[in-house]
């Protein structure tokens, strides 16, 4: 008996067929924020099987892929589900940003890879703020920011520093650079859609002091527009949406060495709506 897992963000669920309940549970846990059941007779998007040698086969409409271990399969599926979920919400602008909601307003952190977005999102969640995402958030035409409920990928060492896990992979290896998943639902959860209160360009500097300055609104607008991902609405819609997001937001530039300190500083910068 096979087990169907469906992931729904847009109108049509993404359907993954698993060979057993345990595998279905593992697949559902990849993107739990969108996992559920599905009805109807739509074709499966992915069908997972095991071959006689014990390897895992993922059958896509485009072809098959073979994985030696369940971990390898899950890693590939997580990536695929992320892409397909984003592709099911092309009416929204997808932004490279971390975010949380404080006092009913969103704080967005923008910056390139390595700028500390995931660490900020982790500390927002651990501090009790519902989060919008650690790397991707979505914005609609009205200027509301929606969460993209993908698990956070965080260095094991950072999780261990926060009292989460041992800092070592489950297989006991000493690769502390390895990353692990953090599910915000286990803490303050995912945020409801919210208008933006703060847009900040962030930059992590090893052992750096916390520094908060003003960022010109056009610079913040340019960063938001440039941060629109090709998977979502782009061009003039991305610009108009970014303009709405920045219109009533405080715009800041923030350099930090300690993510916990920076996360709280940004949360305090959000003022409640009038």
């Amino acid at each position, binding site marked *: 008996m096979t087990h169907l897992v469906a992931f729904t963000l847009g109108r049509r669920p993404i359907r993954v067929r698993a060979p057993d309940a345990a595998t279905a549970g593992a697949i559902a846990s990849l993107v739990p924020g969108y996992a559920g059941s599905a009805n109807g007779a739509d074709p499966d998007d992915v069908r997972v099987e095991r071959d006689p040698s014990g390897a895992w086969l993922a059958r896509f409409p485009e072809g098959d892929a073979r994985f030696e271990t369940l971990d390898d399969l899950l890693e590939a599926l997580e990536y695929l589900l992320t892409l397909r979920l984003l592709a099911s919400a092309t009416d929204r602008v997808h932004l490279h940003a971390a975010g949380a909601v404080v006092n009913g307003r969103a704080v967005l952190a923008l910056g390139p890879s390595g700028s500390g977005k995931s660490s900020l999102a982790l500390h927002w969640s651990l501090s009790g703020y519902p989060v919008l995402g650690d790397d991707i958030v979505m914005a609609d035409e009205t200027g509301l920011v929606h969460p993209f409920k993908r698990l956070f990928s965080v260095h094991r060492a950072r999780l261990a520093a926060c009292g989460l896990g041992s800092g070592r992979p489950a297989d006991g290896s000493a690769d502390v650079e390895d990353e692990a998943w953090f599910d915000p639902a286990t803490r303050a959860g995912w945020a409801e859609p919210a208008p933006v209160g703060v847009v900040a360009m962030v930059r992590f500097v090893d052992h750096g002091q916390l520094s908060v300055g003003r960022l010109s609104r*056009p610079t913040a*607008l340019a960063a938001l*527009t440039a941060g629109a991902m090709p998977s979502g609405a782009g061009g*003039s819609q991305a*610009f108009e949406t970014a*303009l709405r997001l*920045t219109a009533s937001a405080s715009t800041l530039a923030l350099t930090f060495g300690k993510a916990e300190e920076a996360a709280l500083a940004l949360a305090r910068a959000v003022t409640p709506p009038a």
Partner: protein
Amino acid sequence: VTTTGHPDAMPLPRVRDDVILRPLDDDWVAYDPQTQQLHVLNPTAALVWVHCTGEFTRSAVIAAFREAYGDRVAEDQLVRDINAAVAEFRRLGLFV
């Protein structure tokens, strides 16, 4: 850019229809969807922009400027500012 002795010698060029101009605080921003570039315009440049329809001359910009800001800037300086803005718009490929 040719600077003529008379501000009405020829109409200003026409900006592309797909470029979006929006106010932002004290400035204006123009978004070019072709290059995905954002350009910040000061109020004078924005005033020039809205007159770049292929119909208005520099005199129309000067009259609009006078209406908004009075006589605080001399006409020859205004003509230089207008020409500088037009040259920059042209350099950025914002004209038809």
